[in-house]
């Protein structure tokens, strides 16, 4: 019968129309500003810089200004200037830090390569998506003060990944401390052996060498 296909189709739409009031799986619309979507942990929007504490974000930035992200960024939206001096990083090693770290979020395409390639777990992807600004140049060019977010915030948006990162950094720090301790012990042992060696001989030199104190940096 001509028109039976159309009638069958109308039956389907009628079923969906009625179902959209009663069947939960057919209610697909989210009332966005009132109902906030629950973002998956992997969701990424724009980069952020992780700092250890919220009180002193600039002093505890994990970034060591290695410029890997700047080189690999596909649209070239990251700009970094290295510092002249050094300060200890998350593992206690003396490192440079970024004096200028700016990301032009009007250019950034949220690919996440910077976060993926950062060897210091410093740059991560944020999950903010309401990023309107009133000025399209200064408002979207974020400098390091605006990019820095505390580790606690990072934990709040990506708990699983942040826990992994913290465990890895703690292991690194422990390894570095153990290495430093071992180096210091070896040095002290060498110095002691050196000091002991002349003492065992029949004292050609009356002045015994004082063992050097192990340097803290070793």
């Amino acid at each position, binding site marked *: 019968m001509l028109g039976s296909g159309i009638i*069958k189709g109308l039956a*389907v739409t009628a079923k969906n129309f009625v179902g959209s009031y009663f069947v939960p799986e057919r209610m697909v619309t989210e009332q966005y500003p009132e109902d906030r979507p629950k973002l*998956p942990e992997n*969701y990424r929007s724009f980069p952020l810089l992780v700092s250890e504490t919220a009180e002193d974000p600039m002093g505890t930035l994990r970034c060591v200004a290695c410029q*890997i992200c700047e080189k690999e960024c596909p649209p070239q939206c990251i700009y970094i200037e290295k510092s002249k001096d050094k300060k200890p990083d998350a593992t206690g090693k003396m490192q440079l830090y970024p004096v200028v770290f700016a990301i032009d979020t009007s250019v950034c*395409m*949220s*690919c996440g*390569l910077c976060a993926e*390639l950062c060897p210091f777990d410093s740059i991560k992807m944020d999950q903010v998506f309401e990023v309107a600004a009133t000025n399209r140049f200064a408002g979207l060019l974020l400098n390091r003060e605006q990019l820095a977010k505390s580790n606690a915030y990072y934990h709040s948006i990506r708990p699983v990944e942040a826990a992994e990162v913290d465990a890895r950094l703690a292991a690194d720090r422990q390894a570095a401390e153990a290495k430093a301790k071992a180096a210091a012990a070896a040095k002290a042992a060498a110095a002691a052996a050196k000091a002991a060696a002349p003492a065992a001989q029949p004292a050609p030199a009356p002045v015994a060498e004082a063992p050097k104190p192990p340097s803290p940096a070793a």
Partner: protein
Amino acid sequence: MITAAPAPFGQSSGPTVRRVNDPLHGDLLEVSMGPQHPSTHGVFRMDVTLDGEVIVKLKPVFGYLHRNHEKIAENTSYLSSMPYTDRLDYLCSMSTNWAYAMAVEKLSGQAVPDRAQYLRVILAELTRIVNHACLVGFLFNDLGTSFTPLLYAFREREKIIDLFEALSGSRMMCNYQRFGGCRVDPTPEWLAAASKLVDNFPRFLDEYETMLTGNEILLARTQGVGRLDPKHAVNAGITGPVLRACGVNYDLRKVDAYGFYPRFDFRVPLGEHGDTYDRYMMRILEMRESVKILQQAFKVLPAGPIMDPKAKLRGFRPKPGETYGRLEGPKGELGFYLLSDGTPNPYRYRVRPPSLINLTLLEEMCLGHTVADAVVILGSIDIVLGEVDR
């Protein structure tokens, strides 16, 4: 039908007036459809010459979305091009990623672990479903059904896109494949959700087909419209569902047997007439076959690493040489040609976009049909302008 030779094109900016043999015959009219036309699927323009309502000449014009993709890729590292490949065919970034990763892996001889291979098949088939669902919805939009079929299709697409977001962090710009594997390992919950979605998908397809396939208006508008001759199609290098709708059995998943596709049992649907209706049915049948592949893949997905331990992300320098990696994308043969000179950037980078090459026979398909049919024919070819213009 028009008997006179077509007028020289583009000589006047206004309507072309010329004499034809029939004294009662009116003038031909040149119309520029697009680039801001709702039915051209993006910034695509068709310069059509009309005799009444019938098309006597059609010139596709593109380039409005040209972003210099190939040249940019020649000036960035291999890895940095990966996010740009998302933006080629922005409806199916997972397959485009895979095509590029496959070309680079071929170039460097990089091995891929089993789990990553299965994941790639899963994601490529999910992408095929996303693309075909979108296409079918938009095709009906072009037919004039204002939005109902499109929203039904988008409802299902949204579920798959949410899965992509949960896995890769982005709904459409996934940036998921890497040279030598994949970026994120899916959790068991993700796999369970995806498997459930795939098992429920045939229900949607049945509903969709009940709603639309038997519809008399659809049959009247699509059957016999935009016929494509198989010889002509092969000659022009048409690939994908458009070619298979003409009855040519050519599917790279079977021909090249790339990835782990030989391990799956699936069939390649073939059309007979090469008209718009066959192209529509081809998409529906391919979605059903994709569901079959996905159900097999979720059963046999092995545990293990998703990234080859020898794979390098940064400082990646393949040996000098050239390669062409291709796969059966949702739209046709999607290929990447790479020429390496041993530096971190490719010396030459070229994309073979299926959308662009499938567009080349648009005029042949549209001649003799009305303007309203041209819109439907264009919709059934399935183009994405990000890929046409690059």
